[in-house]
């Protein structure tokens, strides 16, 4: 039976930027076993030679012309901001460095 340990779940929660309580981690870990078994069924099939489908419709080359259209006003852009200053989004101290 496949499973994810509590530590595995904690690592994934870190990647997904969701701070989880201990009980949440344990609960998820226990539920995952069943889910993973179910989804592991995909590996039962012989999929060699089968191409992956990432799009139901065979669309290609959809693009837009290089034309400028009106942007949102800064008021609209910032309308949902939890905090703002001088027309910019104000966010708490960032610890990590940019890529």
């Amino acid at each position, binding site marked *: 039976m496949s499973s994810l340990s509590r530590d595995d779940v904690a690592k994934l929660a870190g*990647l997904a930027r969701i701070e989880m309580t201990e009980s949440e981690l344990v609960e998820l870990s226990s539920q995952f076993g069943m889910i993973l078994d179910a989804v592991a069924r995909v590996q039962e099939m012989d999929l060699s030679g089968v191409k992956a489908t990432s799009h139901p419709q065979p669309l290609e*080359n959809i693009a*837009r012309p290089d*034309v400028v259209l009106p*942007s949102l006003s800064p008021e609209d852009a910032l309308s949902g901001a939890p905090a703002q*200053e001088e*027309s910019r989004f104000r*966010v708490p101290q*960032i610890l990590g460095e*940019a890529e």
Partner: protein
Amino acid sequence: MALPTYDEVIAKWDPVLGLEVHVELNTHSKMFCSCATEFGGAPNTQTCPVCLALPGALPVVNEKAIESTILIGLALNCKIAPYSRFARKNYFYPDMPKNFQISQYDEPICFDGYVDVEIDTEEGPKQFRIEIERVHMEEDTGKSLHVGGATGRIHGADYSLLDYNRAGIPLVEIVTKIVPGTGKYAPEVAKAYVAELRDILRGLKVSDVKMEQGSLRCDANVSLKPIGSDVLGTRSETKNVNSLRSVERAIRGEMIRHAELLNEGKKVKQETRHFQEDTGLTRSGRSKEQAEDYRYFPDPDLVPVTPAAAWIEELRATLPERPSLRRKRIKEEWNVPDKEMEAMINADVLDIVEATVLLGADPTKARTWWLGEISRIANDQNVAIADLAITPADVAELVALVASGDLTDKLARQVVEGVIAGEGKPSEVVAKRGIKVVNDDGALMAAIEKVCTEQADTAEKVRGGHLPAAGALIGAVMKETKGQADAAKVRELLLKFLGQ
């Protein structure tokens, strides 16, 4: 223990390079939305649901960006993928609204190309072929202002302010394969590669490619291995390399830093470092505890890019002459000395001068005008030469007027001023200002006689054989003729008049 010298480093170690260059495309609109890309807008005035990543927003790719990327790939001798896709690179950072970047992963649009560069060495010119791994499309992030810290940098800041105007600007990433075999020339080769890339991109007109402004960014990777070994060393990546000179300095600096560590038996850390302009050294970035898992997968909101072979050939036919070949050709055709060639390239007037020559002007004269008088005026006015109101056609006309004797060089300078001031074409300025070379011997003689009478003592001196004194008399004659006489002719007639 002191740092090894560069010579000591290359005596023992063999550098291997890798260069990643990001190019900002000069499209009108962003990569995946129709917001303007113009620089310098007030914060958050060039954003929309898409580039702000509002719930429900969807990307649609800019067709010009695809075209520009293919052109870049072709100019770098790449194969163009008949089928490529966008992929999501997932990580969290406040300057990246979706918390994933739309990029390309295992299916880039261009791959397997090369760029040839030439550098000058004591042993003469050397060629190097830099192989290109891939050229792909992606989008830029927003800009953060870090507030509260001492230096405006992220460390020690209390909070940050985000402006998303630049979020979604189209970027093309050009990645080289590893570059071995440069030996002691590694820094120069890297610099030459970036310079050549810049020239190629400029020739394609797909980007402003101004390193100081960030439309061309270079990340330099360096590792050292013992000479003769096949085992690659650990590499470090250096960011924030903002000029060609910095590319060279950064590589040299990193080679020395690596060598010092390795000589002492220490390990080189695989990390990102930041180049510091003032010291020429690199500073360690925050090392990540865990290598980030980007969980790449094909972006389900975008569809595959499958450029038609016919279209690719059409684009290939529009490629301009390779800059280095063009420069070679011009140098030979016009017989330009190296230093002048360099001066023209550095002042970025090669195109303008060539255009002037194509309109019939003598190459040397064309060069002299653009690099001399016009360049001086541009500097005075604090603008670029290309922004002045004088065109290659104007300069060609000017050169012709001087050649035919209708203007002296001195008068021609007045005409240049007039053209730049917006008074019209050279012929129009000449007419408006009444500029005329006084060629009429009679008029000249009248002026000469007048001056010699007024300055009889000086005239006597010249008659007596003291030729230098003639200078003052010539000056006076020029004044008399309102500067419209040909100074050489005046001298000729004056001396004759005074029996010399």
